[in-house]
């Protein structure tokens, strides 16, 4: 060993000093560093987990938002459809009212025309009747014979009693 340059005493002393240094380093340097690294590793893992959770929440929120938007869209479509239906109903009702009003006006006009026609016919009838009676009065006295006069008198006489 001596031929190799190894001296047992120096080797032992160096080994002891190296062990001491290693011990000191282990206690004072490596262990806190490892502890800190472990803590940081845990923190990073937590951060990653939080990031994943936040991502998931974001995705959920986005899904909820899309769902709410879809529901709002459906509701809006339903409201628009209802409004259109109501407008159509109102339009139909107004149209029916207008038709009924027009029919009523036509009926009244027809009634007025019928009344006017009736009045005209009645007036015409009366006028014709008046002319007929007037003419008859003019000629009756001349055409009635004595027998006619006697018969008329007897007719009246038969009503007495």
């Amino acid at each position, binding site marked *: 060993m001596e031929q190799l340059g190894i001296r047992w005493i120096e080797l032992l002393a160096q080994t002891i000093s190296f062990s001491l240094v290693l011990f000191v380093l282990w206690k004072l340097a490596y262990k806190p560093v490892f502890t800190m690294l472990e803590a940081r590793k845990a923190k990073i893992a937590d951060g990653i987990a939080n990031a994943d959770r936040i991502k998931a929440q974001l995705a959920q929120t986005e899904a909820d938002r899309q769902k709410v938007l879809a529901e709002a869209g459906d509701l809006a479509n339903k409201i628009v459809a209802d409004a259109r239906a109501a407008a159509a109903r109102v339009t139909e009702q107004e149209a029916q009212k207008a038709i009924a009003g027009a029919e009523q006006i036509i009926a009244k006009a027809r009634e007025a025309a019928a009344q006017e026609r009736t009045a005209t016919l009645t007036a015409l*009838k*009366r006028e*014709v*009747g*008046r002319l007929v*009676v007037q003419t*008859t*009065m003019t000629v*009756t*006295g001349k055409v*009635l014979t*004595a027998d*006619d*006069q*006697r018969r*008329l*008198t*007897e*007719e*009246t*006489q038969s*009503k*007495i*009693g």
Partner: protein
Amino acid sequence: MKITKQAQQDARQLFRTCLVNGLLDENRVRQVIALLGEKKPRGYVAILTRLHRLVKLELARRTVRVENAVETSPAQVAAIQASLTKAYGPGLSFSYWINPALLGGVRIQVGSDLYDGSVKTRLEKLEQSF
């Protein structure tokens, strides 16, 4: 003029005394009026007024007015008088008139009753029916 119930009752009673066999006797009417004028009972003016009205109504009820478009023949006069006497009883007062406006037929009025068979009335009814 206000005529009391008593005056009306008295007038009706006097009027009944003026009737002979249901017919108004002119002489009795004259006697009743003369008696009232002579005795002048209480409210005699009202009684006379009421009696006058009753006599007037009775005369009107018994008066017959016969209107004919042509002259009524004696046979027709007799027939009309017989018919009316049969219907209304005796004591009717007849008056005959010629009314060419009737055109034809006869119109007989007895009190408030009217028998109108004239051509004029028939034509008027015809005219009204148009």
